[in-house]
């Protein structure tokens, strides 16, 4: 039960990160290896903002929640125009280019922020006891054991992630920029022939993708900590999630994130974390063999 809730928190954050990666791949056909570094940058910027803001924890955190994703988005847009556009969005060259961006971001962070892991205080953090139930001789009984609890902040993370994911969905399906993004994704050349500024759409998509990773990191940083090497895991897990969920499929990505994290949490508790990682990797291999378009991806022409 506790494993499930902890799993749900990390699943929510993973879903946000993976949706960013999936969006970038879907629209731009760019495999963004630097995605994890945008995540890390979000966490580190959150620490800076909270640190500089001072005052009540909620002020710094609230500020970080806005400033970090926006800043990271701007940096990403800059990287898109200055680097990815220059290599013509060629699939192989963008992989190499984003590896380069990865190291630049990582090393600059190490030089400025340092090698320490630093916490950000959550804006609120009330302990909420969780009920547990048991079948006794008297029948079904509910009770609140000491030590079994979550915090209001963790529940808020789950809620906030849900809201953001819903917003992304509405952005893609209901708005004009979403329409331009989907048209660009479906047929870049025809999009150009109908006046869609594909370059600008790409920059916006890359910024939104990185911004989502940064937002996920701001949400998780009060629970874990900000560290310059924290980008590796989210990158790897996002790739797993995006492959299982189907490239470019938003619902698929979310379901896959929940699947991976919940099973990871439960298997880790009852067996071992290594087994969980092995099973996740095995699942990816199976999906790649039997459903290359992902569990939820439609067949592509």
């Amino acid at each position, binding site marked *: 039960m506790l494993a499930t809730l902890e799993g749900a928190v990390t699943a929510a954050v993973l879903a946000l990160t993976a949706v960013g990666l999936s969006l970038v791949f879907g629209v731009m056909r760019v495999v963004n290896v630097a995605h994890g570094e945008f995540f890390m940058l979000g966490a580190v910027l959150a620490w800076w903002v909270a640190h500089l803001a001072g005052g009540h924890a909620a002020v710094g955190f609230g500020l970080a929640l806005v400033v970090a994703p926006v800043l990271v988005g701007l940096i990403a847009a800059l990287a898109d125009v200055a680097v990815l556009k220059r290599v013509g969005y060629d699939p192989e060259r963008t992989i190499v280019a984003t590896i380069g961006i990865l190291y630049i971001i990582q090393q600059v962070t190490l030089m400025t922020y340092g090698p320490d892991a630093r916490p950000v205080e959550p804006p609120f953090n009330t302990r909420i006891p969780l009920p547990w139930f048991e079948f006794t001789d008297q029948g079904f009984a509910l009770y609140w054991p000491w030590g079994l609890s979550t915090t209001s902040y963790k529940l808020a993370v789950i809620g906030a992630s849900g809201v953001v994911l819903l917003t992304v969905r509405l952005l893609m399906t209901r708005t004009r920029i979403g*329409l331009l993004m*989907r*048209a660009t994704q479906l047929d870049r050349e025809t999009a*150009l*022939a*109908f*006046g869609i*500024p594909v370059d600008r759409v790409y920059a916006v998509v890359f910024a939104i993708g990185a911004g989502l990773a940064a937002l996920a990191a701001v949400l998780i940083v009060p629970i874990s900590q900000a560290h310059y090497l924290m980008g590796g895991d989210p990158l790897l897990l996002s790739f797993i999630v995006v492959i299982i969920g189907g490239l470019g499929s938003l619902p698929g990505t979310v379901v896959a994130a929940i699947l991976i994290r919940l099973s990871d949490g439960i298997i880790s508790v009852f067996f071992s974390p290594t087994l969980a990682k092995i099973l996740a990797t095995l699942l990816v291999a199976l999906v790649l063999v039997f459903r290359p378009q992902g569990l939820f991806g439609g067949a592509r022409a």
Partner: protein
Amino acid sequence: MLELDAINAGYGRAQILRDVSLTVAPGEILCLLGRNGAGKTTTMKAIMGLLPLMSGAVRFKGEPISDLPAHRIPGLGIGYVPQGRRLFGELTVAQNLEIGLMVRRAGRDTLEDVLGLFPRLRERMQQRADTLSGGEQQMLAMARALCLEPELLLMDEPTEGLQPSMIEAIRQVVVLMRDRGTGILLVEQRVDAVLSIADRVAFIENGRNVDTLDASALRADHSLIERHLGV
């Protein structure tokens, strides 16, 4: 209104078009004929700015447009019906048309006008474009281009794979647009399908345009066509 001045273009280092020159006047249908692989589609893409020119110039209403970024060209009033339709398949009919309307910020009146020309689309506004029949898809490709109120219309084999009644419907729309003063550059395989409506015919062979003739001359002397197409 459209003028290609000795353009050379191609894909990467492979040059396809060599010194292609042609003009289209307002209210005129210029038909571009040539064998498979002659460079007809490449000509269209070069006009739309989708291919960089190696040399030469494309002018529209007297202004050179070949230096503009590709996405600025449709906004000048050039509608494009690509070969193979190239609809945004996962989007609905309404969304495909909306993308056309956005190009020059056209409004409801334009949409109503276009749907008046293609009533079958009106019943299917919420249907996904890739679930339309072949004929309906071609109508949508035409309608999408008309939504930007084009002054010049480029159409690449709009009757490919269609039955005669559908070809007739499309031909009527083309004639109507011409009568409204739109310049039309029409690529076709089947000479007979267009000879009756074309004003002039340009022949292209191996990326060079060999001749431009009045359609009336071709109608009078069919052997001219056979000579130029080598069939």
